[in-house]
């Protein structure tokens, strides 16, 4: 029974949590919010893809990447390139010296479309590239790092450096990438105006659907043998290696998976916001994404989604009410979370709220407390304990 519970895809409790999140995203938010706010939450949810990937890499695998913005950006840029080419018809760009190429190329005296832009005329290629390019890049980084057993802080610093390098590259090659301005003024997807309110609503639901697909994929990984190996690697890497497992391959895999999620998130961001720029690639957004995961609880994939929503919502509301002080408020929020709830919202739930709820229900059960009930609760959180300790050290 024990192993059955461990390998089952969703326990009953988890199924309830997934259902709750689905209700929030698919029903409550769309009903409660006007189209402007819903679009904002759509944007937040596109960051949640990255946070889920981080939970797998960092929370489960112990691989802290401070460069997830790179993969978010690659996915976003791939989508932006397709949309920009569609928006740059010779008729729409007749005012340029070379009509038919994106406007920023014309401003930078580029007179022909570079060869590596050509494939992005195809939507099919673009959709593949949104996932494949980040994954390929993550694979190269992963193989180069993990095969050499680079890990921990060194890995975090290197990923951060990669984020900085890519930003500089994008800004420097502005004739081909749009530079600091990014790729802007994206209008249609295969003739469908992505700027209208209806389009934004549809994109919200597409985004939400993809997010759940990623959530299920992440849940599948965590439940699988791979997921348990990841946690074992995080806590005792050498033991796993001496047991005959190829540690590097598992790390590369989970890092690539996180990159794939981030790429999808980036593409959905581009579609919903209407542009892509290097400010979403660099060090600051990459760290922000780690914060989303940390606030939500880096051990919980659902917590990461809630964390992303909460932090971004707080950011928007605070900055609307206190345009000059909001950063301080946000900083206070982060400090409070790290100091008092090191396992984030999910930790708050499983350590504070759930035991009390249980007691409450157990009390009502009039003495007929089934002794089995507390056991799963303990054992479920048990694998997480050493991690919390390790993080605290």
């Amino acid at each position: 029974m024990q192993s059955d519970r461990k390998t089952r895809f969703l326990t009953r409790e988890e199924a309830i949590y997934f259902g709750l999140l689905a209700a929030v995203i698919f029903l409550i938010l769309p009903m409660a919010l006007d189209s402007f706010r819903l679009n904002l939450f759509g944007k937040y949810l596109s960051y949640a893809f990255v946070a889920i990937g981080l939970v797998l890499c960092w929370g489960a695998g112990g691989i802290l990447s401070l460069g997830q913005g790179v993969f978010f950006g690659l996915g976003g840029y791939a989508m932006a390139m397709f949309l920009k080419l569609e928006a740059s018809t010779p008729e729409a760009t007749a005012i340029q010296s070379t009509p038919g190429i994106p406007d920023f190329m014309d401003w930078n005296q580029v007179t022909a479309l570079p060869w590596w832009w050509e494939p992005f005329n195809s939507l099919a290629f673009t959709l593949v590239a949104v996932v494949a390019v980040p994954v390929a890049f993550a694979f190269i980084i992963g193989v180069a790092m993990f095969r050499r057993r680079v890990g921990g802080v060194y890995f975090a610093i290197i990923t951060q450096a990669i984020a900085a390098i890519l930003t500089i590259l994008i800004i420097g090659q502005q004739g081909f990438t749009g530079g600091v301005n990014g790729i802007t003024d994206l209008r249609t997807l295969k003739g469908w105006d992505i700027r209208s309110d209806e389009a934004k609503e549809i994109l919200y639901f597409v985004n939400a659907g993809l997010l759940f697909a990623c959530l299920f994929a992440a849940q599948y990984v965590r439940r699988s043998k791979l997921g348990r190996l990841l946690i074992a690697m995080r806590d005792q890497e050498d033991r796993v290696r001496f047991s005959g497992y190829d540690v590097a391959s598992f790390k590369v895999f989970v890092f690539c998976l996180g990159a794939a999620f981030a790429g999808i998130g980036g593409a959905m961001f581009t579609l919903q916001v209407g542009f892509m720029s290097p400010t979403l690639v660099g060090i600051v957004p990459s760290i922000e994404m780690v914060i989303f995961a940390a606030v939500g609880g880096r051990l919980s994939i659902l917590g990461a989604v809630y964390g992303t929503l909460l932090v971004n919502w707080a950011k928007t509301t605070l900055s609307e009410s206190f345009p000059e002080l909001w950063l301080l408020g946000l900083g206070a929020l982060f400090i409070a979370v790290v100091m008092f709830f090191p396992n984030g919202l999910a930790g708050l739930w499983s350590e504070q709220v759930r035991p009390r709820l249980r007691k409450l229900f157990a009390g009502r059960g009039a003495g007929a407390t089934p002794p089995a009930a507390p056991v799963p609760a303990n054992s479920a959180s048990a694998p997480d304990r050493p991690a919390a300790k390790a993080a605290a050290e």
Partner: protein
Amino acid sequence: MTDFSKPTMPGMSRRAVLAGGAALTASLFAPRGLRAQDFPTAAVNTTGLAVTDSTVTIGILHSVTGTMAISETGSVQAEKLAIEQINAMGGVLGRKIQFIQEDGASDWPTFAEKARKLLVNDKVASVMGCWTSASRKAVLPVFEQHNGMLYYPTFYEGLEQSPNVIYTGQEATQQIIAGLDWVNQTKGAKSFYLLGSDYIWPRTSNKIARKHIENFMEGCEVVGEEYYPLGHTQFNSVINKIKLRKPDVIYAIVVGGSNVAFYKQLKAAGIDPTKESPIVLTISVTEDEIRGIGGENVEGSYACMKYFQSLDNPNNIAFVDAFKKMWGADMVIGDVTQAAYLGPWLWKAAVEKAGSFDIDKVREASPGIELPTAPEGYVKIHENHHLWSKTRVGRARADGQYDVVFETADLVEPDPFPEGYQ
């Protein structure tokens, strides 16, 4: 139609400022101000903007946090000053201006988000905002989609002409050509070394400068052109090249924090701008930037702008006084701050000329709007939504101010898509 713009005639704002208190000015100008009851809300606002019988709401959208805050704060202050002065005079069509301020946080997606919020949720009648080209590019589709009106204050690269933007700063040709001609004619400069930070504005500006030098200035040449990433602080290699090639003019479009390193290293390498060999000419250093660089490092270099705080005319003297009174005596006012100050005034004039707050009518009324009260002097909105402005050259003093050494005789026509410079 023009009589609607009468209340903005010269002297009004100046006298309003001199009179001091709002109550006093309100009573002084009540007979000449427009009264709200003559302009029923239903008639002046047919598209559901945030206009009531006594107020009209506009947006202010700049970065007050993040790396750009230091540059954009001046613009916010100037816009608030203009709004206060307009309200003291009785407002726009008899309605007091209220503003909703949003923080773009130096982050382009945030700018887009906040722009959408101001237009869709708050239904503001216009927006004063943005600073960097990147932020403008990010909000542009939002303004075009929701038909808003943006007053954009920064001098910029041109190559744009949106029906939903009034550009109150100068486009590139207005800032560059007159300055190059001046340095050629009065200083006899023949060779130029172009350098800049690596993004669209310096690159486009240097492109125009190069075309002008090579095609329109007899016997002149460009001896070098180089770019450095934003935030770059190592200029020694380019300074060595400059010493080797001995240009007459260093044409520098370095922005932000890099300026500090650039001017200090220039001086350390023995190129003292005050000696004028070579001459340092820039279009990116205003009084605001000098505060960061240090006056002693910049002293003697020339800047080509449309406005300097030291301009000696009654409009400007009143403006500088009012600005310092509102924001503190140690404030400095740069070119962009002044351009931001024009935004609310130009909008007010357009609304009153149109007799309506409707965006489409304001847009139609905008070309030809004149503002004789502008601190920089007389300005006028061109058909292409940019301003006719004079170009001026100033020489930096050690105290961080500029001495104006040259100004064009006439207003320079804005030309965002210059023929022959593409």
